[in-house]
């Protein structure tokens, strides 16, 4: 269980997060949804200690983040972000093997795990020896996912993971990941500014605005009725777009 308790964070005199309290139960797929500057990335990074709250605590399974050395905590948490950050001097297989190596696995086990992950994320085995520069954007993000999953984390943190991909790849990878989430029994926290992505992938959407929680609930509930006009407008956007698409199909013009 991940718990935020009265967490605040200020950058250069501007409050970017909080006060914020929230708990995430094991197995949940939570999306932090909000515009840029809403504090969603900072909130996410507090879970693995890449950002440190000024006040309040974040704890995982009852132990405050920062109570133990951060490297050992981070090795148990998968982390994926938009820029991916594959190590350009390492091959695909070597990139995937970094987590297991950090965890001190023996080489045969690492090799087996690498092969397993390549098939898990639907990548051909023959790209294992390639350098990241020789991959397409979608392949790169799949490798990023595989790398984050390699050491068998229970929690996955994802910051706009599919943000830089084309719509087809994005949709496919999103669905593949959702399936993995189920299959591996992960707890996933994903940051996105894309309402549709949040609605289609997550079990629970936390809408953030100016560092505070504006709305929090399962996609269906958030779609059904919203008192906050901003959240209502946000949630209605995909349906509005859908109606415009239907109008186009019937031979109408843009309007």
């Amino acid at each position, binding site marked *: 269980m991940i718990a935020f308790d009265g967490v605040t964070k200020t950058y250069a005199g501007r409050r970017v997060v909080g006060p914020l309290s929230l708990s995430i139960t094991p197995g949940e797929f939570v999306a932090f949804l909000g515009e840029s500057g809403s504090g969603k990335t900072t909130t996410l990074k507090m879970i693995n200690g890449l950002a440190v709250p000024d006040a309040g605590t974040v704890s995982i399974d009852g132990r405050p983040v920062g109570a133990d050395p951060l*490297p050992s905590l*981070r*090795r*148990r948490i998968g982390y994926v972000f938009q820029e*991916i*950050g*594959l190590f350009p*001097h390492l091959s695909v297989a070597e990139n995937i093997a970094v987590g297991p190596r*950090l965890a001190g696995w023996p080489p045969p086990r690492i090799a087996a795990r690498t092969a397993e992950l390549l098939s898990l994320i639907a990548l051909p085995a023959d790209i294992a020896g390639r350098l990241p520069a020789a991959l397409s954007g979608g392949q790169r993000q799949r490798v990023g996912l595989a790398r984050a999953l390699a050491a068998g984390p229970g929690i996955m943190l994802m910051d706009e993971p599919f943000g830089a991909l084309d719509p087809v790849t994005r949709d496919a990878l999103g669905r593949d990941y959702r399936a993995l989430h189920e299959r591996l029994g992960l707890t996933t926290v994903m940051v996105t500014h894309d309402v549709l992505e949040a609605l289609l992938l997550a079990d629970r959407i936390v809408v953030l605005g100016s560092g505070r929680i504006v709305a929090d609930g399962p996609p269906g509930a958030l779609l059904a009725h919203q008192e906050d006009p901003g959240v209502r407008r946000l949630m209605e956007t995909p349906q509005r777009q859908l109606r415009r698409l239907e109008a186009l199909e019937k031979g109408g013009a843009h309007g």
Partner: protein
Amino acid sequence: MDDRFAAAWALLPSYLSQHVLLSLCALALGFAISLPLGVAACRSAAVRWPSLFAASLIQTIPSLALLAMFYPLLLGLSAISQAWLGRGFPALGFAPSLMALTLYSMLPILRNTVAGIRGVDPAAVEAAEGMGMTGAQRLFWVELPLAAPVIMAGARTAAVWTIGAATLATPVGQTSLGNYIFSGLQTENWVYVLFGCIASAVLALGADQLLGLIESGLSARRRWRIWAGALGLVAGSAAALSPLLAVSAAASYQIGAKNFSEQYILADLMASRLRAAGARVSVKEDLGSATAYRALASGEVDAYVDYSGTLWANVLHRRDNPGRAAVLAGLTRELKRRDGVTVLGPVGFENAYVLAMRADRARALNVASLADLAARAPGLKLGSDLEFLSRPEWAAIRSAYGLSFARLTSYQPTFMYRALEDGEADVISAFSSDGRIAADHLVVLADPLGALPPYDAVILLSPRRSGDALLRRAMRPLVGAIPVEAMRAANFSVDRDKDKLDPAQAARELARQVGLER
């Protein structure tokens, strides 16, 4: 030409091996210091600015001055170590050269390490942190491998600088390819100068290319290029260093020489006499005028020839001129008392600053002495070498005789003689043992007032070796053995433009002339 080339070629193994050893050690040490310092500089601005500033500051010091500065520093450290630990260390030669070149090599490596690490893609750094790498793992797994091409580029620059600057180690007593250049400049042996320049340029370019191969291998991730470059470096260094193994036994006698022809000839003469007596000898050439005496006093050089007036003024800081015999007696007493240095005796000739004129011109003007010259000087032009006009000798004769020339011009020595020949100058400053005095039919003007101090060439022995029977036996016959005419002839045989001899040949010829053959 062929002779000189052959002579230069024969010296190559010894010069090159010393040069490579020095450059290699300086680069390795520079790298070993700069790389961790660069990493620390990336982590902390409090380290970054001072270290980069210091490295840049060092770079602005002319490399020759940097090398020279370490000599007195090490001398002081050696004295402290002698006092506290009971043993000193050599302040001349390898140690000061290594320290100066190490400092000199640091800036490019330091700067590129900082630039390389700070230039690593922030996403890769964030991924490394997010995955749970410790600071050290992030450094060794991600930052250093990614910064490696940039760091190598810095090492390349450092290698080229260091190999070039290592030629300047010669004047502080470290043999290097600079020996060709410095002795070539002094004896106007342009084959040597060119040979030294080309040898060090080839060495620098070779190292640059091999390091470049490693650099391109690192950035293109081609293992074979990295291996080929590294293998080339190892093989090249091993080949260049191999002569050191052959003569690994250290020379047991060190003969010193300052940086002009006469000194090279005399040092070769002294060394050959010691060798004939069965000793192992090496010659440290091109010592600076002031460093030579200190090197002798501290025992790094066992014997060399200096000049009484120089020692009188520069070592004993005396400004008076009590006469030739009194200066010699005073030196013998004072140097022994003060530094334990033995003045074995005068070689037999003087090498003094004198004023000289063309014989025909002197006759025409009826000038034979400085006193005669004083009356004529207002209508005459004085040509001098580059330092004469700022030396006490000039001040002394100017005030003693009331000399006032129509014009004063400084020349590089070769051009000073040309100027006299062409009539650009009427009178020149010269050294009394210079071979060109006889060859160009010059007359040396007498100094009836004794304003110029005596400059008897004297053999000095270090305190450590002053009781050494073999050394004394080999040097003793040189005392009083060489008249100024013989020395002039020997100097001229090295300085002239045609049929040049090298100093070793000139030394053999001189020994034959004065009957010193074993």
